[in-house]
């Protein structure tokens, strides 16, 4: 049967990765993967996905932000309960971190499957840029910051940035890297306002303050894929972006360790913040062809099957959710991350904050980076008040 799958994985690397899912799905089950890619990331795709689900015209499966968003849909009985499939596959045995499943769990039942661990916590560095200024490639954030003046003298952008949402992940990365795991847990999980006002967070804010001095809107490129190109060309020296950037770097012909370097956790922290892209399976309306429901079930199983996991994550550049996969074929960057995973994952903002709060934090950070009139103190205060009212 035909199964429509919506997602917003439209960048080069993402698209290639999702193609792996499709390939495996079609090969192994004989069903057809009807691709419903929606550009514009969450902003463009979310309304369509949500309105289709509540409008009674759901797709067979969809990628969605894991977490609080879907909760109401689950409450409204619009999402398929996957607990049986999960139990049948013994999902808790091989999942890399129980915490990943938490957001998918509602009243003890499982409603979604995270299909990868994606993490924002990466600092990407351009080998070419550092060759140009004749300095070694930094091994952590502080060295990287120290290299900015030299880069600027050489006419190289210290930090490449795309317009729009890519900036939204940066504060979280700085928080995890500079502030450390405790700070992340205190703020995101415990909504501890005092932590925001504390010394650790101030350092994070100051780092962001430093960062905003080297990014300017007229240097921004339209898409994050372009930043990848800048890194490879050496016109930009570094970038904080999620692991999925690697997909684009590879497609553009970049070789990790040679053309670019990567520093998980900014080279400071030994834990990665893990979010996950999850798949949800909406409850299909009465009268749907049983075959489609069957296909839905099979896709759910397949997405977390070892084959599909490996194929997908290798292309996407993210970590699989299974511990029982041989990652020896993973590239150098991924290899760096594997040991960090043993330390467990830090819950990402997606997991612990509502999208409403995330939206507010994103609005704040974007405003802060763009507007030099907002002082670090202001930033901290406003951040605190958002956390204070967060639910």
């Amino acid at each position, binding site marked *: 049967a035909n199964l429509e799958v919506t997602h917003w994985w439209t960048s080069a690397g993402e698209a290639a990765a999702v193609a792996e899912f499709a390939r495996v799905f079609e090969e192994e089950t004989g069903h057809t993967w009807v691709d419903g890619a929606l550009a514009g990331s*969450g*902003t463009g795709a*979310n*309304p369509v996905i*949500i*309105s289709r689900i*509540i409008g009674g015209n759901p797709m067979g499966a969809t990628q969605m932000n894991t977490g*609080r*968003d*879907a*909760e*109401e*849909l689950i*409450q*409204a009985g619009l999402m398929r309960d996957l607990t049986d499939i999960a139990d049948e596959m013994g999902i808790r045995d091989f999942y890399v971190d129980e915490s990943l499943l938490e957001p998918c769990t509602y009243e003890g039942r499982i409603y979604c499957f995270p299909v990868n661990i994606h993490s924002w916590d990466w600092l990407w560095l351009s080998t070419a840029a550092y060759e140009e200024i004749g300095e070694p490639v930094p091994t952590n954030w502080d060295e990287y910051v120290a290299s900015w003046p030299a880069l600027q003298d050489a006419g190289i952008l210290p930090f490449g940035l795309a*317009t*729009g949402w890519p900036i939204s992940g940066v504060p979280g990365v700085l928080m995890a890297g500079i502030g450390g795991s405790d700070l992340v847990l205190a703020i995101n999980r415990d909504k501890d306002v005092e932590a925001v006002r504390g010394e650790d967070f101030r350092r994070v804010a100051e780092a962001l303050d430093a960062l905003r001095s080297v990014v*300017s*809107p*007229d*240097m*921004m490129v*339209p898409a994050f894929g372009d930043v990848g190109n800048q890194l490879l060309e050496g016109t930009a020296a570094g970038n904080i972006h999620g692991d999925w950037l690697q997909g684009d770097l590879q497609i553009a012909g970049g070789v990790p360790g040679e053309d670019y370097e990567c520093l998980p956790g900014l080279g400071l922290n030994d834990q990665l913040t893990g979010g996950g892209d999850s798949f949800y399976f909406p409850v299909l309306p009465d009268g749907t062809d049983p075959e489609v429901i069957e296909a839905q079930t099979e896709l759910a199983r397949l997405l977390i099957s070892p084959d599909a996991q490996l194929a997908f994550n290798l292309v996407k550049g993210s970590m699989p959710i299974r511990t029982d996969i041989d990652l020896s074929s993973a590239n150098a960057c991924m290899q760096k991350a594997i040991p960090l995973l043993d330390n467990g994952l830090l819950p990402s903002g997606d997991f612990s904050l*509502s*999208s*409403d709060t*995330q*939206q*507010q934090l994103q*609005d*704040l950070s*974007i*405003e802060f*980076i*763009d*507007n030099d009139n907002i002082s670090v103190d202001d930033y901290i205060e*406003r951040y605190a008040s958002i956390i204070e*009212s967060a639910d």
Partner: protein
Amino acid sequence: MTDASASERQESGTARYVRQLFTRNISAKIAATPMIVTVLVIFIGCTLWTIYYSFTNSRLLPTGTFVGLDQYTRLFGTSRWNVSVWNLIWYGVFSLSFTLVIGFLLAVLMDQKIRFESAFRTIMLYPFALSFIVTGLVWQWIMNPTLGLQGTMRNLGFDWFTFDWIARSDMVIYALLIAGLWQGTGFMMVLMLAGLRGVDEEIWKASRVDGIPTWRTYLFIVLPMMRGVLVTAVVLAGSGIVRLYDLVVALTRGGPGISSEVPAKYVYDYMFTAGNIGQGLAASTMMLLTVMIIIIPWAYLEFGGRGKKS
């Protein structure tokens, strides 16, 4: 004619009247139902729905509980919303005055018995046929600091040439303005031209005989006579401004930072991305209020005034 039969007729007349009221012109009443349903269900019903849920804490689904004015308190405590409102005000003031002024000036120029009038008009009006998405994309390309006009001019050796408004928080609103004007002034010109052409020829003759210079005639005599067109123009432009969304999304996505955010985008983002319907609807209600403020004076002028005249 006896009294009894007369009153009998009278009665049957009344009875018939009542009956006719419902059965008469039945097709006309049926034909009006789409409009009536649209008005009642969509325009009135949905508006009330919007207002109602703006007082709840609804998240992804409109199921929340009543929280009074909380959403509004938060709305006006949010700097993105406030920036959006200010942007809209600035954009509105500039856009409205520029479209009107430019539209009028162009119309006046076009009114000078020029040759190739229809060619000029075609050129000025064609952007109006394009969507804001297309408009935004084209201007984004042109205003791209590295690849667009600025980059090109600099490559040609004009190093001083700067056209990076799209990347500057303080100027981005003008970038929006340029694209918006590109799309909309032609239409204003056509409106104004129609208004100019609607002015009685004899007024022109009278003013020439009176020796009034052309520009004064345009300004002091013809312009005030175009009140109807002007009001329409203001209302049309005004409603377009309040709704401003596509252009921003296509051209700047609200950036740099939040410097080109607009209320419609705030509504959209909070309703659909942030999953906070209550907040989105509170913002919508504020927009509705704004629209009311624009349109009620107009309706009064149009309909109230008309009533008085006849």
